[in-house]
């Protein structure tokens, strides 16, 4: 087991280095392009050359790559071209904001999805099952921008219960989180719920559940002890993938509510070629993706003893 964990972590580092190299090649492969985006479109060729020489961009790619890796590891993410400030000053607060939004959404979404999925799958074909299935398909089919508009229309303009923006200008305000979380949960929970339902329904038809019933166990114990753990193996992977989406896929929602998050930062940077911000965001996104995959695989092995012990 320990060996497997170590192997997975080794693998993770390797993947990070490879992806970082790609990111680096795309963004800093051509020094003239960097100089151009730093100095602006009107800079002369001599100015570009001087800038390249001054900042050491005339050295080999290889050396620059490892230098850059070293800087990233020590927390120096470079200078933002747009904000004219160190990237780390903007980056961490934005990442933190998204972390809060993603974390709250994740917890609510997973709980709702698992409970509904299990309830639906427990008695396949029942009224409850059909209700939950239709509801989850419906909410998943509505894109975030549409549900954001609909919910804002209802709660902000019609009922006037909630604020319409979540920019947190006067400090952190939990009320401002409600709408973004609701939009994300509605959109995201359907996948997990449907996966859980299918998995649960399948488990309920297995012979070992029959064994448990014919052992004379109470229904609750059959569900909690016998069905649940086996039913969670399949949706677990999907749940892990959702973390990824919650970090970098929520741009639309962040924009819709003016939330100062990570997705919004990445989009702005990409649109305005803010190279060092793009790099920092890219590294962060890849890191989270690789980390969730690794945790997912390890958790999967824990849930499924057939993989754990060969």
């Amino acid at each position, binding site marked *: 087991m320990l060996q497997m964990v170590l192997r997975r972590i080794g693998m993770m580092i390797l993947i990070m280095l490879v992806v970082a190299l790609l990111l680096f090649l795309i963004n800093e492969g051509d020094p003239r392009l960097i100089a151009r985006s730093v100095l602006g479109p009107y800079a002369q060729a001599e100015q570009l050359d001087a800038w390249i020489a001054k900042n050491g961009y005339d050295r080999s790619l290889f050396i620059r790559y490892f230098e850059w890796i070293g800087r990233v590891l020590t927390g120096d993410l470079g200078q933002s071209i747009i904000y004219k400030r160190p990237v780390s000053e903007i980056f961490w607060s934005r990442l933190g904001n998204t972390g809060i939004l993603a974390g709250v959404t994740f917890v609510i979404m997973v709980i709702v999805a698992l409970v509904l999925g299990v309830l639906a799958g427990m008695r396949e074909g029942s009224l409850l099952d059909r209700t939950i299935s239709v509801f989850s398909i419906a909410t998943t089919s509505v894109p975030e921008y549409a549900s954001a508009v609909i919910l804002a229309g209802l709660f902000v303009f019609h009922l006037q219960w909630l604020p319409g923006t979540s920019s947190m200008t006067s400090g952190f305000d939990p009320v401002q989180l409600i709408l973004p979380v609701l939009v994300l949960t509605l959109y995201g929970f359907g996948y997990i719920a449907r996966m859980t339902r299918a998995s649960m329904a399948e488990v309920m038809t297995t012979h070992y559940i029959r*064994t448990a019933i014919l052992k*004379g166990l109470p229904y609750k114990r059959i569900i909690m002890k016998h069905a649940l753990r*086996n039913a969670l193996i399949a949706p677990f992977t999907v749940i892990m993938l959702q973390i990824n989406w919650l970090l970098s896929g929520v741009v639309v929602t962040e924009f819709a509510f003016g939330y100062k998050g990570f997705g919004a930062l990445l989009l702005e940077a990409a649109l305005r070629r803010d190279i060092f911000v793009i790099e920092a965001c890219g590294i962060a996104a890849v890191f989270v993706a690789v980390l969730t995959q690794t945790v997912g695989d390890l958790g999967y092995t824990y849930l499924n003893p057939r993989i754990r012990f060969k």
Partner: protein
Amino acid sequence: MADQNDAPVLEISDLRLSYYTRMGEVPAVMDFSLTIAKGESVGLVGESGCGKSTVANGIMRYMGNNGGIVGGTIKFKGRDMAEMSEEEVRQLRGKDIAMIYQEPMASLNPSMTIGNQLMEVPIEHESISEQEAHDRVFEMLEAVHIPDPKRLMDSFPHQISGGQQQRVVIAMALLSKPALLLLDEPTTALDVTVEAGIVELIAELSREAGTSLLYISHNLGLMLEVCDRISVMYSGEVVEEGHIDSIFEWPKHPYTHGLFGCIPLPHADKNARPLVAIPGQLPLPHERPTGCYFGPRCGFFEAGRCDGNSIPITEVDTDDDPAHRVRCLRWNEIDHEAALPEADTRPPIEIGETVLEVADMKKYYEVSDNSLAAMISGATAKEVKANESISFRAAEGETVAIVGESGCGKSTFAKVLMGLEQATEGEVRLSGTDIGGIAVRERTPEQLASLQMVFQNPNDTLNPSLSVGAQIGRVIKRFGIESDPGKIQQRVFELLDTVKLPREFARRKPRQLSGGQKQRIGIARAFAGNPKTVIADEPISALDVSVAAAVTELLMDIQRENRTTLLFISHDLSAVRYLADRVVVMYLGQIMERGQTDEVFSPPYHPYTEALLSAVPIADPQVQKRRIVLEGNLPSPLDPPKGCPFSTRCPRRIGAICDDEVPPLQIAADRHVIACHISMDELREVEPVISLSKPETTAA
């Protein structure tokens, strides 16, 4: 508490069970009555689809979402189960009525330790403490002869062998000392030697506790060994019931008779007494005929009489068995003895020249060992000797059976022959060419065509999205037999004729066929290229008794016509005895004994052959058997015994020589070879395992 002690444990009367489908209500079981007294063992026999498992589910009141009990009563210890509440039924399940299932692996929760799965039974039913439950489970695991119960309790189901899994399921069923035990094909998925041990174990434990047993199986031989009474079911009805002896000695119903005609018996062979399959198929529940359900398949059908009103079950007035009853109008008119098709014997096939010769063939696998310890020591590869020095010959028209328990290397051997694996050493000569080292992709179309295979599970071996005709036609084209589409079509039709299927089946998809029909297609496919040699890997073990008989006979007929060499891989010794000319007995990758079938099946035996023979249930009350139950499990092929592979389980082990030295090949007769340390003279003195109590006049 309110039990009347004299009431039978189970009393079922006029039970009707139905399933609700899109076609409406489908009766699965009709007018089923059965009484089981305390300590009695009753069998329920029939082919798949006859409703026997449904009866067990009905008793458990576990009919699923689409099934229901439509009529009749089930009384457990005198109490009508229909009047019990859900909660009361739940209390009965697992405590008073327990069940043992067909597939032990699927019946155990893969993500719970075995200890926890067992302990929850007494904890739930008797509200005892965890420690007490732990001790109870420990004792029970010892009672079912599991070595090292402590380690087993912390294991997960996939970590133990199939036989041990079934012992766990038995332990689970017996933990609360039930009054009634339902056994649904409890040994079907197990090896014969394991089966023998399990059967004995169940008998022993239930005798001690006075448990009543309801055995459900299609295996008549097993029934004879374990039951006091049996009921034979056909299409949802009991067609004959009575004491085991009277049913086996004087079966009255044509269907029961038909079933017996389908099983190969150890004193009959393919030429003297060919199997007689029951014609036709079991009717689907919504297509049952009026009158007698067996009518369309019955040789004694009388129009206007058998197809009238439904047939009542009537008593057979024999003095020996007042309980013998039969559902047939003509039971006392039919003379089954006279009806035997006597003239139906066949001349033996003449054996031709040697077609296949295997000389000292070895197949080793390398298994990589990824543990840290192995990485440090550098020994990351281990060798598994799947086949060790295999030698034998097979001639044209000959049937050679390869027998042994699962894991004995018989499938590896088949893979090497087919070219899916390459031999590590030695030669495999097919008509003079060594093909042991030629992979299947490198073989010429002629080589491919001349060596084909019939697989075990017909459901998995046909492509579900291609029509049957297209699948056979493709083989004909690939092997270069024909290239013109019209001629291919013609050849497909001929092959369908050969396997006795209607020509219009060429257009059907595999899902429109029954299991037996699919296996016929598998045979047609294998014979498409006029092969010299066909390997049949357990071709009938997934089929029902009557279907298996028909498929066996078909295979024999085609072989007879084409003078094909047939390698019959099987663990079913009755079938092997019936159809093989020569037998090769394998254990842990090595040949223990080989020779003519008669020689192998009578002394001198290898001790392993002796144990295998003893383990086979035989559906003939005249046959007497010596019981030999093997202890322990098959050793791991990663770490086989140094000397004789069988030494760890051998009941005739003579001493350290067995553990340390590879046994010599002793020649008992021409081409009858036994690998054993025991001297030939001693082996010759061993009593036969199987003997007939009443000698029969038919010459072997």
